[in-house]
């Protein structure tokens, strides 16, 4: 192996197609943690080692290791699951995890707080309802996003089918998952073969999304690989293909940056899998395996140049990219409440704060959803905004579902649109990368921002605020009109200038603000916006027009100025 590769590459190489020493790690009862190599390999199986950071210092003083547990993330292309599946997911969350389900910005769910000795039971449990966690994390193609809008049902179904096929086509082929978790037959390592990935998989995670304009809830341009569905009269014609999007950056390191995907061209539906596979193999062969900070496809493309990259993909896939079709996106948010689809079925979008499905005294989300799942005949769809759609409800059941939702406080009447558009990543206490709070910070912050907006007479303003605990960007904060990105405990960088449609990056406005300064700065900003905005002008547009920030055009060069 090339001596210039990073440690994770070596770990993958010696893992024998993702087996590592996972079984020994699970059996080692002196620690709740995994062996360091296995903590990398486990990601490909869908779970991360974490610890309760709230208790970390205290436990160290108590001569106890950190309170280790595992976070498992499932693969759920397009976020669709059945009520039967939901009931099982709910039960596992209550019995084998920390009593919650966490809906993610990539349309799936996570379990937090799974103890090492329970991980196998969790995986077997979801497997019983045909859900797996293969490639939930790790250097492979991740959960494929797909616009869940159920109202245009036929088109959606067709597009969702492609999302599913892409996800399946790009699954690792190793039997390690079945062997270790599902007690599958043991294959000799030599018999394994990864036709697409090869034995060291990709240099880094790889993300794919499928969008159906005019909705850009999937934040298509934040993905390594994107497909924009092009339909004529409700019939799918093909996709515009995009490549090289991503959010992750590192504070202070100007060689890292968020980047919007480039358009490569238009392809027919039947060319989708070939294009996806070609894109993956180009990244496999050209991605940076020395430095994980520069290993995402966006850097590979900036290295190669878009033209060269398009050429490589086209020739590997054996396709000719046609000129991309014109598309326009209008929003990156969800529509709440009931809507009726073309076929007369009803769909209820519920606002789930930070995607955390949990029972709280004032709102019994988990119980409510369980009761709904008990009678629901359609399906559930997790949205890329961490919300949940109770989809395909026949007209006669609308009332019944509505009353369960109402009884448990699931309806979002009275929730401001600022809050409803907001996103926060998980951050503390589970996320090892978090530098500041996010999910736990959001509710209190939004209380104050709402009050502020009221005071300036713009309480109904519609603006996208996103918070993350670190610059990795899990809630896609660089696509927000106002983004807060954690810098240290209680401290955030503030970004401005997204367009509310997910097609423009924002830019840093202030650095390392304490929570009080965040509020002060936002207050001034909202005051200015209330006074000087043009009719219908969004906050993000306003901040650019008035020169509070300059628009980011080529992030490699101008994101950090």
């Amino acid at each position, binding site marked *: 192996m090339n001596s210039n590769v990073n440690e994770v590459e070596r770990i993958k190489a010696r893992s024998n197609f993702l087996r590592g020493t996972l079984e020994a790690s699970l059996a080692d*009862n*002196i*620690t*709740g943690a995994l062996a360091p190599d296995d903590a990398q390999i486990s990601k490909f199986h869908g779970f991360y080692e974490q610890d309760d950071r709230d*208790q*970390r*210092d*205290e*436990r*160290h*003083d*108590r*001569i*106890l*290791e950190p*309170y280790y547990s595992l976070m498992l993330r499932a693969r759920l292309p397009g976020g669709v699951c059945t009520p039967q599946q939901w009931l099982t997911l709910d039960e596992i969350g209550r019995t084998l995890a920390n009593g919650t389900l966490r809906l993610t910005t990539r349309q799936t769910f996570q379990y937090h707080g799974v*103890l090492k*000795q329970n991980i196998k039971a969790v995986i077997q449990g979801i497997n019983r309802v045909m859900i797996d966690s293969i490639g939930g994390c790790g250097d492979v193609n991740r959960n494929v996003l797909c616009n869940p809008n159920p109202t245009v049902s036929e088109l959606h179904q067709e597009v969702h089918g492609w999302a599913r096929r892409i996800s399946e086509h790009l699954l690792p082929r190793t039997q390690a998952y079945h062997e270790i978790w599902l007690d599958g037959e043991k294959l000799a390592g030599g018999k394994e073969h990864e036709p697409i990935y090869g034995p060291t998989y990709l240099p880094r995670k790889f993300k794919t999304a499928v969008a159906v304009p005019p909705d850009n809830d999937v934040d298509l341009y934040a993905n390594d690989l994107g497909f924009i569905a092009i339909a004529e009269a409700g019939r799918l014609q093909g996709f515009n293909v995009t490549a090289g999007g991503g959010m992750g950056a590192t*504070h*202070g*390191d100007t060689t890292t940056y968020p980047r919007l995907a480039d358009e490569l061209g238009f392809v027919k539906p039947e060319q989708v899998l070939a294009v996806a596979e070609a894109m993956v193999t180009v990244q496999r062969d050209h991605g940076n395996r020395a430095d994980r900070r520069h290993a995402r496809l966006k850097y590979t493309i900036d290295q190669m140049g878009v033209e060269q990259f398009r050429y490589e993909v086209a020739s590997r896939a054996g396709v000719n990219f046609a000129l991309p079709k014109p598309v326009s996106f209008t929003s990156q948010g969800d529509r709440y409440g009931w809507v009726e689809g073309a076929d007369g079925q009803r769909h209820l979008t519920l606002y789930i704060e930070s995607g955390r499905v949990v029972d709280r005294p004032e709102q019994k989300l988990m119980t409510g959803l369980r009761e709904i799942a008990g009678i629901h005949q359609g399906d559930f769809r997790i949205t890329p905004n961490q919300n949940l759609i109770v989809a395909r409800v026949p007209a006669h059941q609308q009332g019944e579902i509505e009353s369960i939702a109402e009884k448990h406080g699931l309806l979002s009447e009275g929730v401001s649109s600022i809050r409803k558009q907001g996103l926060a990543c998980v951050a503390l206490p589970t996320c090892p990368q978090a530098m500041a709070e996010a999910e736990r910070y959001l509710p209190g912050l939004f209380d104050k921002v709402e009050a502020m907006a009221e005071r300036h007479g713009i309480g109904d303003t519609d603006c996208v605020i996103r918070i993350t605990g670190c610059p990795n960007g899990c809630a896609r904060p660089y696509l927000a009109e106002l983004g807060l990105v954690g*810098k*240290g*405990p*209680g*401290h955030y960088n503030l970004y401005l200038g997204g367009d509310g449609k997910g097609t423009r990056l924002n830019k840093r406005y202030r*650095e*390392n603000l304490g929570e009080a300064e965040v509020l002060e700065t936002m207050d001034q900003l909202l005051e200015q916006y209330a006074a000087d905005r043009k009719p219908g002008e969004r906050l993000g547009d306003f901040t650019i027009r008035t020169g509070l920030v300059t628009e980011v055009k080529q992030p490699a060069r101008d994101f950090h100025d």
Partner: protein
Amino acid sequence: MALSQLQTLTNPLDDQQLQRLQSALEGMSSIQLTWVGGYLAGLGSQQPQAVAAEAEMHQSITILFGSESGNARAIAGALAERAASRGFEAGLFSMDDYRIRELTKERLVLIVVSTHGEGDPPEGARDLHSYLHGKRAPRLDKLKYAVLGLGDSSYQHFCRTAKEFDNRLHELGAERLLERIDCDVDYQKPSDDWTEKALDLTKAHIPAQGPKVVPLTRAAAKIPQARYGQDNPYRARLLENQRITGRGAVGDIRHLILSIDPEAISYTPGDTLGVWFQNDPLLAGEVLSEIGLNGDARISVKGRESRLSDALLRHYELTRLHPALVRGWASLAKSDDLSEIAADQARLWEYIQQHQVIDLVNQYPARPSADEFAGLLCPLQPRLYSISSSQTEFEDEIHLTLCLLQYQAFGRNYQGGASGFLVERLGEDESLDVYLVENPCFRLPGGGDTSIIMIGAGTGVAPYRAFMQQRAVNNDKGANWLIFGNRHFHNDFLYQLEWQRYRKAGLLDRVDLAFSRDQSEKVYVQHRIHQNGAELYRWLEEGAHLYLCGASVMGGDVKQALIEVVSEQSGQSPEGAAEYLETLRRQGRFQQDLY
């Protein structure tokens, strides 16, 4: 260290001298060796001009780093490489892998440390940081040092940790070799420059490779100067009282560190400490008001006059009952009920185990005089606690592992007399009366090559911590096997980090754990003994020593399990197996400390 190893190091003895030394030491037990080591060190220090001057030196650079995200680690690594390429002998340690107590022996330490959180040390630097800033910090007059800080000036507390290390080392008497540098996010160039400078200066302080001698032992030979005992206790100071069970734990177990003068108390792993305590003043007040006595009343205690309330705190048992008290109280209270209990041995014992003095006076009202009452009470007894440290490792400290006895009954909360005092009433830096209780029947094997099996539950693990410290310092080669049980893995795995470190270092060969409440069916240490019966028997057959420590109830179950295992593995009858264990016991190979 084995003498044969001495040979491989550049040593100041010629072959003949070495041979003579070897033959002189042959056959000595580890305790004897320890003593001889100290003796020699003492001799050496009286001949300052000779070999001893070199012998006490560590002629190397030690590079310590504290890093969270790897930057400081990388810089320290590069520093070590450059030091090596210039011919220095450099040791590179992450601060959390470094044996803090070595610091006083160092001559030159280079520190590379970042700052995290809100100006906090990185995780791995916390222990060293707080040790140096705490009251246990040693003087470091012989040390030269330099600090490189890593940080980010957009944070409020730029490089605070580095500054703190720098200032504190200076305060402790160490001498700055080179001004500290605080590196910002672009640290490469400044850190390279600093590294070069530091190594240039190092050259001036560390002479060309001279002969290197590793001292034979760390502790000097000492014979206790005064004899302290139960009636003539030593006044120790409580340095630290640290809870060591997790947030959700039912049991509140503390790690207590007492400060002692090693001249006054010299202990061996396996020893216990006798502790005098004072009763809870609130409890004493309650008892007095319940029976209508005034605390100011004078009574005579051991021939001296004392206030009744003082006597209840210092001289009498207020938590434990004893039969004479129950009997006496029964007649005072003229209670048939209590008299019946007192007359029946079994019921009396049960009553005593489940009640305290306050319950007796509550449940059976009586109005004795102050003298009458005091006359019935049992004199205060000191309590014993296994020492959980080795003096070779912690020369002037005694560590205890103490479980706070607390429970609820009759609608109120109760605590144990001594454990309540030590855990809740005695403040850090306050003093208490203690005395050493030697425990020659609970000792490490004489030879370091002998393997040991340590079985214990709860605080029963305490002496094993001392054992491991001792075996590590001795560099004993015998294998170590811990079988430990408690309630929950996450909350009650006492000294978990230390056991993990021993395992990582290859000192702890096997660990078997039984956490009784982590699964629906209860699992205890005796189950682990059964599960590992073949292995355990093999160890015994190969000469391992077996230890058992903790609560007596557990002890009984474990002994039963041991008999069953030996019987299964050897094909003997249970009686034969019991005899086998008995033989081990007689040979000193099966030792118990049950309470």
